[in-house]
């Protein structure tokens, strides 16, 4: 029986910002161009596959808040550094779905009708950047955190996600930290395991400084074992941190 999800629980992370509350529609599209090879004498048109691409489109409400939709979408347009995006599919839950991508903002529009709320739309063209085997320049994966705030003293190993089997072609992980009041460095990693008992670091994100909000996308090649989990530790003695980690296998 299919497991449908409702779109109302979608979440939108762009760089170090959780912009979920500003948007009410998120669309992901993947396309693969074809080049026509029809020749004289053919009865049917023929094609060969060409270049593929992924696009993310967001729409929602305009707001001039600090770190809000307008401020961030304006800042990203034309930015030399491609932002890191994670779209949570469905409810926040370790093991739930997520799409990870790195994408350039190509369009930002504000609409202010006389009898309705001011709205925004933004389009992002995904780019593989350093992750050359990122098909369509985006990838579907799983949430390794529920994106909730965790106190400094409660950081540690989060629940594992069972993929039923290992995979051989590497993967990519995204990290978003929209809030952080921990007063020391925090280390966040993705670990993998073949038996859900002994673990090894798979991806180590750049160490997060005290009270630093940040984001990162990192990729690995080769074997990704059956089980994955996120783990975090800190040298800090106070505060809490909210971090979203998602991982997509290739």
């Amino acid at each position: 029986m299919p497991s449908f999800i409702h779109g109302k629980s979608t979440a939108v992370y762009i760089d170090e910002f959780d912009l979920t509350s500003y948007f009410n529609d998120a669309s992901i599209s993947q396309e693969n161009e074809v080049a026509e090879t029809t020749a004289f004498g053919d009865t049917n048109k023929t094609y060969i596959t060409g270049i593929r691409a992924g696009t993310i489109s967001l729409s929602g409400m305009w707001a001039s808040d600090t770190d809000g939709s307008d401020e961030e979408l304006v800042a990203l347009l034309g930015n030399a550094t491609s932002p890191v995006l994670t779209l949570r599919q469905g409810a926040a839950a370790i093991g739930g779905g997520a799409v990870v991508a790195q994408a350039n903002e190509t369009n930002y529009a504000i609409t202010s009708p006389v009898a309705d709320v001011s709205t925004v739309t933004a389009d992002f063209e995904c780019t593989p950047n350093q992750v050359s085997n990122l098909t369509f320049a985006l990838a579907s994966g799983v949430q390794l955190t529920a994106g909730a705030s965790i106190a400094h003293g409660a950081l540690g190993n989060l629940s594992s996600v069972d993929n039923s089997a290992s995979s051989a072609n590497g993967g990519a992980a995204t990290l978003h930290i929209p809030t952080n009041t921990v007063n020391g460095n925090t280390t966040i990693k993705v670990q993998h395991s073949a038996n859900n008992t002994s673990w090894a670091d798979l991806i180590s994100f750049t160490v997060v400084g005290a009270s630093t909000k940040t984001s990162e996308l990192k990729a690995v090649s080769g074997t990704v074992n059956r089980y994955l989990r996120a783990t975090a530790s800190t040298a800090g003695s106070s505060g809490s941190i909210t971090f979203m980690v998602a991982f997509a296998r290739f």
Partner: protein
Amino acid sequence: MPKYIVTGGETGEANVEVNGKTYAPGDAIELKPNDWLIKSGYVKAVKPAKGDK
């Protein structure tokens, strides 16, 4: 159980965790000979020193 040294994997920086304890590259660890960490190269066997039995 046989002793192994944590290699750090491909990056040379990967820690491993066994039975809730974290081991950094260079640390010694005891594992069953069929543990997946051995086959994956996260640890390597310790060569017995001369005189070891």
